[in-house]
């Protein structure tokens, strides 16, 4: 068996070319082997990954494959019986195999060592398009157990397990369910929220691409618990692969009697419908999501009534995050006591994060709650490229935490107290090359564009915040603007109607709290320490280093660089558009002297 990691990230890294080359090699030599496209195993920095498992031998992982290298490894393995251990990174065999092969076990790799994989347990191991693989790995045992104990007992079990909403707010899952179960009415709905609009988050997408059935089983369990007859999966229409895999999964469930008028003979009718969203961040908000499913503009409404009482088509509706649902089969199968061994008091279980940004080992990770941020960033992520500056959690709604918060445990309350939020799982590491003013501007730009426009604090407030930040990044603001920004942020936070507006100022407010000095530098001195804010940066050529190779002159789109061969070049700042082409060429080209520098200079205060 040959496994190739082919979720979106793997495909982007070139997994399909690798797979094509492997197939061609196998065909050329008449080798009988199955090539399986599996999902994402997590350590994206090793993509594309290829695993080879022979009967009676441990499965071996090869990282950073290219089509040529993969073909060579396959040939060596099958024609010369040589597993090419030089290219292998780890094995997935038994304990004793490590010494024999001289390879570490996969889950002992530094990136995976501190992780606990419950939701992601199947990711990268099973064929996502095969329900049989899922069933062979204890799939659908959770729903069978649920049928045995009855709906109310399922809710009790989930209460006992103490799982809280993994979408970020951390509301106890059982409470919502109980409201909905107790609500009068026959028709009830359960919705799986895979809107995942944050830029820089891909946990839910990866989970569905790698193990769709665990989410579908979770939906079934939740539907059974609250007495719903219809389940919806609301998913971003950009997630083509995930949608395709969900549809395959649903068709297979129908074939196996897991959906229909009478699920597995239990008398429980259930059907799942996939609804595609059309890209609006605000649709992560429950009431906006419902509006969008009903075919209206995705605008939130004021609550109460809560959707658990009156939601989709005015019927009681529960909306759970993908990850919450994906966890349910584990809880039902293994029991609440088993689940409570992970995490800490009040924050039980695990949480997935997409760890990206300026970190050495980015990827999809799952950690027990209560783990320290330091352990995630330095242990799993391998630290940042340049000295660590901050970590942004929770996407545009979350906040930035500076280095002094590195020992903060990852728990809902602790994160909220520090000014950030747990969020749905985006975790972006920032190093010294990141400017916080620019980052706050970036997020505010995003929320301002995504604001639905229904309430004034959010619609107008975010616009003004963007303007203030823009002026700051241009060095055109005064120190009073910082106070103005803060007051405005607090107002937007307090007065907005829905979660989007209430959290939109967070990136600005938390960076103001931890990095006020940087804001002051921008406002007073027109100085951007990280040299990111374009208007505050100038490019120049270091005369000591310039060897006159003319590469920068050739690459400059505006002819701003002049100089004759073998003499020092100069940049005409009036023409320079700061596109960074000259810097890159000078830094990375073997002939160049690494002479182009860009930096921000402090303005002398008059």
């Amino acid at each position, binding site marked *: 068996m040959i496994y190739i990691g082919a979720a979106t990230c793997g495909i*982007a890294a070139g997994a399909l070319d690798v797979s094509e080359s492997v197939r061609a090699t196998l065909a050329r030599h008449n080798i009988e082997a199955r090539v399986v496209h599996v999902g994402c195993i997590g350590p994206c920095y090793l993509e594309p990954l290829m695993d080879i498992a022979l009967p009676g031998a441990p499965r071996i992982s090869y990282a950073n494959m290219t089509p040529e290298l993969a073909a060579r490894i396959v040939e060596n393995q099958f024609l010369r019986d040589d597993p090419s251990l030089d290219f292998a990174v780890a094995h997935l065999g038994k304990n004793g195999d490590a010494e024999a092969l001289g390879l570490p076990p996969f889950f002992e790799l530094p990136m995976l060592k501190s992780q606990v994989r419950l939701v992601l347990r199947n990711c990268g191991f099973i064929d996502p398009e095969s329900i049989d693989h899922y069933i062979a790995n204890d799939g659908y045992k959770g729903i069978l157990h649920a049928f045995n104990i009855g709906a109310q007992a399922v809710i009790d079990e989930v209460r006992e397990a103490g799982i809280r909403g993994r979408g970020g707010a951390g509301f106890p899952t059982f409470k919502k369910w109980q409201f909905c179960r107790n609500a009068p009415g026959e028709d009830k709905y359960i919705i799986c929220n895979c809107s995942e609009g944050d*830029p820089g*988050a891909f946990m839910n997408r990866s989970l569905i691409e790698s193990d769709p059935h665990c989410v579908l089983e979770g939906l079934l369990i939740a539907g059974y618990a609250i007495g719903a007859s219809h389940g919806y999966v609301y998913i971003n229409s950009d997630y083509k692969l995930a949608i395709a895999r969900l549809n395959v999964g649903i068709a297979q469930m129908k074939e196996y009697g897991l959906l229909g008028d009478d699920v597995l003979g239990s008398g429980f009718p259930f059907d799942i419908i996939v609804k595609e969203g*059309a890209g*609006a961040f605000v649709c992560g908000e429950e009431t906006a999501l419902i509006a969008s499913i009903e075919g209206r503009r995705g605008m939130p409404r004021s609550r109460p009534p809560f959707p658990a009482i009156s939601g989709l088509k005015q019927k009681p509706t529960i909306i759970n995050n993908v990850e919450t649902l994906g966890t349910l089969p584990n809880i039902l199968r293994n029991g609440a006591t088993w689940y409570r061994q992970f995490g800490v008091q009040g924050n039980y279980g695990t949480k997935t994060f997409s760890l*990206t*940004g300026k970190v050495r080992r*980015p990827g999809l990770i799952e950690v027990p709650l209560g783990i320290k941020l330091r352990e995630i960033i330095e242990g799993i992520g391998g630290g940042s490229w340049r000295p660590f500056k901050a970590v942004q959690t929770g996407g545009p709604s979350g906040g930035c935490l500076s280095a002094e918060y590195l020992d903060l445990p990852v728990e809902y309350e602790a994160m909220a107290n520090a000014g950030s939020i747990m969020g749905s799982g985006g975790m*972006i590491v920032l190093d010294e090359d990141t400017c916080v003013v620019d980052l706050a501007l970036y997020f505010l730009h995003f929320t301002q564009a995504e604001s639905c426009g229904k309430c004034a604090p959010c619609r107008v407030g975010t616009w003004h915040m963007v303007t203030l930040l823009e002026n700051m990044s241009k060095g055109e603001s005064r120190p009073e603007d910082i106070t103005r920004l803060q007051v405005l942020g607090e107002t937007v936070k307090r007065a907005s109607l829905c979660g989007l507006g209430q959290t939109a100022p967070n990136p600005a407010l938390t960076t103001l709290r931890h990095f006020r000095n940087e804001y002051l530098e921008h406002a007073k001195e027109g100085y951007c320490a990280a040299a990111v804010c374009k208007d505050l940066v100038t490019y120049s050529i270091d005369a000591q280093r310039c060897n006159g190779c003319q590469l920068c002159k050739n690459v400059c789109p505006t002819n701003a660089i002049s100089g004759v061969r073998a003499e020092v070049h100069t940049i005409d700042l009036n023409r320079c558009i700061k596109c960074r082409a000259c810097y*890159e060429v000078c830094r990375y080209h073997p002939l160049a002297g690494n002479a182009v520098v860009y930096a921000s200079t402090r303005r002398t205060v008059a």
Partner: protein
Amino acid sequence: MNEELYPSIFSQFKGEEGELITILLRVQEAIGYISQEAVKRISQFLKISENQIYGVASFFSRFRFDEPGKISIKVCMGTACHVHGGSLLADAVGWDLGITYGQATPDKRFDFQRANCLGSCTLAPVVQINDKIQGRVLVTELKETMKHREEF
């Protein structure tokens, strides 16, 4: 315009108001944008006003109302790409094509969009040209690629 197109799309639906967004998505997949004709046809099919359809379609960022260029160039503007300098890439493409994002070149050959996140954050910064995603792109690399743009 193919006469069969709309009937074949509509035949997959029951004609309920709740299906509007899915219908719009299918139409956009078929012809690349939401044309005036499409809005008229959908309004007849779902028996709702054209205004209502424009209202919904303009709310969501996915829908566009002008014809896209043939070759699509998307620069990712996700957070991870942003901190790795994605906006410099967007500027470079813009300079090269002489248009800004959200536009197509006047000859409708190239289409330049920003994406909120292409889901390949670990390869940041990324650029998608047609269906192919390029990761860890440098400005100079992108310029080099753009030189061969007629061959995409």
